[in-house]
């Protein structure tokens, strides 16, 4: 069979061409490349497709499996919808960086060995940083630097782990492992940093809302979900992930409830949703892994949709805070309806994609008899409806009338939102369409009358709680401290203290050093410098002259010594 080229090359080529072309041709590349990528993704058969040897290691840049194809498919779909959403509004370099970023995600999906995996991983870190910087504000620049530092630090930790595993096992294969020794722990930590796990979840909520309205749509999809894929491939059934996941789920809800910035609310809910997936990977049964994969697929769609809806509002109004927005349903009905569909989907409302995928994770917890986990996940489902399902659309499109009367989203943004809204409903109404592509066979029935009723009660009464507790949730012009306080404030202060201390030491030294230099100069002048003092009396030991005879004698002695040493 013909050697397949890696689908990621198509997106990389597109990223380069976006900068070189103009007008219709560029539009054709932006919309065509992801579709071509999709075609190639579905031509990749199971198993290792291409392989070569590098430094004695077997490199497998292209390995197919149902799981890998599923993730690559959603990454390519996201690139298409993101491109459609952004191509008339975003700058060319933002689009180019976003496509290279997507290429990295597709590359990770098919990486059969840890070296290829690591290269694409860093590729993503690089270009996602550029997407953050494309926000263009001073806040975006600073957040981009913090983002880059965190990801390259994570990359180093991952690299240390990969080296350790390669040395101890002699193989670079991507295969399941458990966090049992130093190297595997390093790999796990490196991946979890990208998944926005505690204690560094703050990089995500710090950076994503600083990107441009179009940039955050791309950012929402790739980094955390490639981390989910990596966890499914490398650490299925690692028990610690259950607790990490539960923490992320609760963290996302609590912080989102406190937040005022609309896109930051959505960013916190990414942590929350990824928490569901991480927890499922920790459970590790076939049902759980299916649930994690399906939920990642559905999540990219509805989260992209929510960021598109928020992005359209920011694009039209220039405002992104709940305190400044409100009442926009009057003039932005399409954006509002699409936002509401996304919000219902993330809440797991019946007939949306969230219901048919998230309940698989709950089912997996119940099957394993993890009673507290099951109830925490159920409470979290209620909490998602509270913080994202109602809070986001309520504060942006309803609540009080802000007086803003912006136009509805431009046609291309609307088209992308409609596409993703339809996908949310399609997967919700016909879940089998997605179930057929999951890594393991699915015997799960999403819709049973009793379960639907249970979730309807759960969600609708959460809605009641939201409206009854509204006075407790008045928006304030505040941010919430997170662990990033440690490096943004404490580390800054420590650095300042060290800087000041060094300056004091330097100043004190300066005087001493000068005195010492003068003294040394005098000493050197005395012994090495001028041959004679002014009174022509010979002084310096090394400045003495020897007679020719004495010199010849010494040379003869040295040569004899050398010869003797040579023959001994």
């Amino acid at each position, binding site marked *: 069979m013909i050697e397949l080229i890696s689908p990621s090359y198509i997106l990389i080529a597109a990223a380069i061409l976006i900068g070189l072309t103009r007008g219709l041709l560029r539009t054709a590349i932006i919309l065509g490349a992801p579709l071509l990528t999709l075609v190639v993704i579905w031509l990749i058969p199971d198993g290792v497709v291409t392989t070569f040897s590098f430094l004695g290691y077997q490199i497998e840049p292209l390995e197919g499996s149902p799981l890998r194809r599923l993730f690559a498919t959603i990454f390519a779909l996201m690139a298409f919808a993101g491109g459609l959403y952004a191509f008339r509004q975003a700058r060319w370099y933002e689009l180019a960086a976003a496509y290279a970023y997507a290429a990295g995600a597709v590359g990770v999906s098919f990486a059969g060995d840890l070296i290829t995996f690591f290269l694409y991983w860093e590729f993503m870190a690089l270009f996602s940083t550029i997407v953050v910087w494309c926000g263009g504000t001073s*806040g975006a620049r*600073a957040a981009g630097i913090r983002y880059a530092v965190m990801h390259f630090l994570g990359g180093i930790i991952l690299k240390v782990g990969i080296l350790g595993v390669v040395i101890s096992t002699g193989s670079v294969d991507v295969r399941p492992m458990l966090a049992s020794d130093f190297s595997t722990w390093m790999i796990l930590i490196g991946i979890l940093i990208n998944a926005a796990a505690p204690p560094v979840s703050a990089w995500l909520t710090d950076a994503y809302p600083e990107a441009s309205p179009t940039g955050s749509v791309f950012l929402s999809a790739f980094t955390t979900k490639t981390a989910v894929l990596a966890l499914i491939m490398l650490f299925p059934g690692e028990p610690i992930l259950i607790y990490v996941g539960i923490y992320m789920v609760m963290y996302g*809800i*609590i*912080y989102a*409830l*406190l937040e*005022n910035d609309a896109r930051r609310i959505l960013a916190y809910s990414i942590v929350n949703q990824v928490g569901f997936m991480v927890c499922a990977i920790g459970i590790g049964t076939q049902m759980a892994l299916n649930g994690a994969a399906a939920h990642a697929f559905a999540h990219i769609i509805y989260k992209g949709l929510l960021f598109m809806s928020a992005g359209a509002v920011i694009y039209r109004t220039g405002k992104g805070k709940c305190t400044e927005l409100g*009442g926009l*349903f*009057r003039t932005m*009905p399409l954006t509002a*309806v699409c936002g*509401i569909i996304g919000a219902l989907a993330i809440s797991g409302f019946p007939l949306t994609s969230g219901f048919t995928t998230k309940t698989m994770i709950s089912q997996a917890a*119940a099957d394993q008899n993890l*009673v507290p986990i*099951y*109830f925490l996940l*159920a*409470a979290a489902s*209620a*909490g998602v409806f*509270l913080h994202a399902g109602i809070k986001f659309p309520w504060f942006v499109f309803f609540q009080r*009338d802000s007086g803003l009367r912006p136009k509805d989203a431009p046609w291309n943004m609307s088209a992308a939102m409609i596409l993703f809204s339809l996908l949310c409903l399609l997967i919700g109404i016909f879940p089998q369409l997605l179930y057929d592509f999951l890594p393991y066979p699915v015997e799960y029935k999403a819709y*049973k*009358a*009793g*379960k639907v*009723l*249970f*979730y*309807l*009660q*759960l*969600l*609708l*009464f*959460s*809605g*009641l*709680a*939201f409206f009854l*507790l509204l006075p*407790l*949730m008045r928006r*304030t*012009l*505040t*941010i*919430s*401290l*997170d662990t990033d306080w440690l490096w*943004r*404030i404490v580390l*800054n202060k420590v650095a*300042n203290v060290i800087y000041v201390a060094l300056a004091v030491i330097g100043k004190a030294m300066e005087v001493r050093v000068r005195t010492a230099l003068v003294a040394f100069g005098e000493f050197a002048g005395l012994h090495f410098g001028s041959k004679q003092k002014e009174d022509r009396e010979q002084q310096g030991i090394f400045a003495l002259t020897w007679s020719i005879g004495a010199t010849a004698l010494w040379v003869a002695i040295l040569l004899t010594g050398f010869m003797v040493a040579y023959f001994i």
Partner: protein
Amino acid sequence: MNDRPKEEHWLVRSDTIRLLWKVFIAVLALTVLAQSVIGVKGYFGVDGWFGFGAAFGFLSCLIMVVVAKGLGFVLKRDENYYSGQNQDD
């Protein structure tokens, strides 16, 4: 609350809001009462109790909002907290 025509204020009139509340409460009551017809087969017994989903959903939200509110007193800072800090340096 999903469909709304374009006319101004239709949705924000107090009559409409009162009506929406009535409909909402009726739907809430219906979802609980429906449990007497459609059995909810819980996984662990307790979650099959009458109206468990409703009570559990409401109470978890109440707890989460209260916890968030409490943490807010500790964690909330002015939105220029970090940018103000940087300007000093």
